[in-house]
């Protein structure tokens, strides 16, 4: 992209060339905050928890000067309840926490899901279980974020690997929340969230903001409109704002398409089922993966989050030793990008899945689709998986 003007040996050259880069040192947490602003977030409620507090602080500083507001809440339950309330009023909202706080939010995230209220929750993972290790990393919340609902509805989950991707995927997370009227989890982990790194702002992907479609009282289709109505699995009803001229009827209980509590009613059951159907109907456009394919590779390595970076180094080392290996970084964890995974693995006989948790949470999710392959896990608890850990399994 640029021409190096400086070489060792002419150190005293006083004419230093300036690169066409706009660099900054930022943590992943800070980039989540900046991404939220770019996405149009106007409301944040925060409760402190290591390693997620940087997002809270970032938005406390950024929102007041970006026509928004960040408030401190007395616990994580309130934090998410405030966000859902603000979103129902019509504003893009977000909170951030770690495993212990997520445990408290599980009730309210289900409320957002069943009321089809857009909201983004960033879960910056740390070592578990329970309060675990506040300043230790981990990737052990993959299944608890996804399977947080009674009934097992898909909560879309995005997982960046770098601080720059934190920015980009925060915007995506908001866009998904708005477009599909759903809570979206942005997964992160201590090593991404709290590590600072150089970012070239000129190289950040320019992702366009998506805003929810809002129903107006003079909409020509107003007579047909229902709060949770749909004609086809892919349809997302227009959103009614509290305070707008179209009445909002929201409830956390099983309801019909109008939002009215109805028991033993076929419409109610199909309205609930639609919560899942709408995500499945759009899952092809929700695939976010990065494939680094090598022809004739026998092994495919799959990873995500901080470990995806380690995987890249391991793959580089393996290739330098003449081993043919491909890698797949997964960003859209859920819905699981099944086709992208099976097609990446198609020509390989072995799949290595690297993740920093006890027994391979995501690996268990892929068992069915990879059942004809030899599947190998690289796992750790309490320390980062190293490139050597992955390399060892590639070379076996």
């Amino acid at each position, binding site marked *: 992209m640029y021409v190096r*003007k400086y070489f060792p040996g002419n*150190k005293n050259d006083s004419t*230093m*060339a*300036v*690169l066409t*880069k*706009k*660099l*900054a*040192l930022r943590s992943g947490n800070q980039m989540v905050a*900046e991404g939220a602003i770019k996405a149009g977030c106007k*409301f944040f*409620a925060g409760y402190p928890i*290591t390693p997620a507090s940087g997002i809270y602080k970032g938005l406390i500083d950024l929102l007041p000067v970006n*026509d928004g*507001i960040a408030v401190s*809440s*007395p616990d994580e*339950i*309130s934090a998410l*309840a*405030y*966000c*859902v*309330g*603000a*979103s*129902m*009023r*019509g*504003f893009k*909202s977000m909170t951030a926490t770690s495993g212990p706080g997520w445990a408290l939010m599980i009730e309210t995230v289900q*409320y957002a899901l069943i009321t089809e209220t857009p909201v983004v929750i960033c879960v910056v993972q740390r070592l578990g279980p329970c309060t675990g290790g*506040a300043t230790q990393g981990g990737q052990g919340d993959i299944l608890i974020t996804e399977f947080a609902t009674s009934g097992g509805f898909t909560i879309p989950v995005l997982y960046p690997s770098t601080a720059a991707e934190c920015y980009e995927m925060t915007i995506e997370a908001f866009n998904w929340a708005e477009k599909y009227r759903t809570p979206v989890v942005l997964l992160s982990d201590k*090593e991404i969230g*709290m*590590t*600072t*790194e*150089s970012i070239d*702002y000129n190289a950040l992907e320019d992702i366009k903001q998506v805003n929810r479609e809002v129903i107006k009282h003079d909409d020509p289709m107003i007579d047909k409109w229902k709060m949770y109505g749909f004609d086809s699995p892919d349809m997302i009803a227009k959103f009614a704002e*509290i*305070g707008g*001229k179209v*009445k*909002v009827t929201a*409830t*956390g*209980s099983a309801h019909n398409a109008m939002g*009215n*509590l109805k028991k033993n009613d076929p419409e109610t059951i199909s309205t609930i089922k639609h919560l899942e159907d709408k995500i499945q109907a759009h899952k092809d456009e929700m695939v976010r993966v990065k494939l680094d394919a090598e022809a004739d590779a026998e092994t495919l390595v799959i990873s995500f989050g901080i470990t995806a*970076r*380690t995987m*890249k*180094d391991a793959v580089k080392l393996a290739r330098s030793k003449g081993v043919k290996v491909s890698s797949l970084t997964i960003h859209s964890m859920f819905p699981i990008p099944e086709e992208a995974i099976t097609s990446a693995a198609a020509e390989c006989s072995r799949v290595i899945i690297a993740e920093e948790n006890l027994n391979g949470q995501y690996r268990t999710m892929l068992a069915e689709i990879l059942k004809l392959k030899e599947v190998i896990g690289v796992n750790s608890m309490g320390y*980062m998986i*190293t*490139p*050597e850990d992955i390399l060892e399994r590639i070379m076996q």
Partner: protein
Amino acid sequence: MMQTEEACSYMTFGAVMPFCKGCGHSNILKKLNDAMQMLHLDPMDVCLVTDIGCIGLADALFDKVHTVHTTHGRSTGFATGIAVADKVLAQKKLKTIVLIGDGGSMIGLLHIVNAALMNADVTVIVANNFLFGMTGGQTSSLTPEHFNTITSPFGSMNPSLDICSIADASKAGFIARKTATDKDLTQVIADAIAFGGFSIVEVLELCTEHGTKRNDLKGNMLAKMAEAEGHELGILKNDPLRKEFSLKYHDDVEVHKGEIKPLKFVEPLDNYNINRANGFVIAGSAGERVQSSAGMLSEASIKSGLNVTQKNDNPVTQGSGFSLSEVIISPNEINYTGVSSADYVIVVSENGLKELKGQKIFGRINDKTMFIVDESIDLGKEGLNVLSLPLRKYCGADKAALGAVDYIIRKFEPFPHEIFAGIIAKKFGEYGKIFKEGYYEL
């Protein structure tokens, strides 16, 4: 049930109350409707947030206003988000009213307390019939002592919570305790809704299905019962002096927004001398600027045009024990952020050394790794490239790590030293005077 369509501006005309005969809820909801009418509220400017329990069935009756039926106890939490967003970000028209029972008010007590502390523009109506009605009449935290319920067949063991006192302790501006049959209940609810800020009205009432069957209780005995518990009745507080949340927020932002520092960016030079990644491990004690020295190294590196990662580590209590940073600087993309084969290891205190040994530092070096340690440190291992320097003596404990980093940049020049000198000068003043004289001769 109200008789005319006109009287039902907010409720469904002709709707049958879903409550048991004689239940106090019917009266409370009727009076809520009347209170809104008294205030001439546009129904589309009203958001009724209902909690779980029999009282939570109200949202189905108020079909002309926005209704949000929530999870148990959380109603005030959702209402706070709705009200704050409306007042700070939108047209400030909304009246947000919570209907919650005695059970819900305890499970969601912190939401009530915090809404009051914030002075969010929310009105909470607590329909207190001293028990969980919907689930069969179990004891709640607002059940009076000796009151008989199915789960306190010998009489409730605990005294009841005085939620109005809790609201008072939470600095709520409007607090009232009434009974469902009070003649002025409509007016009191209207006053609470009109109040600019947080307001709460506790309404004592009967659950005819579970309360009156097990206790010798009639409507006119509610006031006495409250008094026996030491709970006052009437409008207990009506003090509009505190600013409603959004007003205070707007004032604060107006006054202080200039203090928020803009984000910092660097236009990098293209001036460095390394063609591969260099890994630094810097260890010392908390309070010795280990991580901020690493930060200055990172800042100088990006200024020179290099990529950087900086990973910090410390115990949970940030101000004690060890402090550690791992910095990688590289002309290439940096993936793995840990230093697995260090180029430089800096150790300026015993705390730092202890932690490094715990993190198996001697397994993360190569035969060229340079150890820059304070003269007081004994690494306890042979065959290493060690530079032992009087860092603490010349740089002080608080700048020993900085001195070590500076020393590396001076001697090994991964990028021009003047960049680093410039950055530390900006923070500490003239470069030649930051450390004691002897340092510059090292």
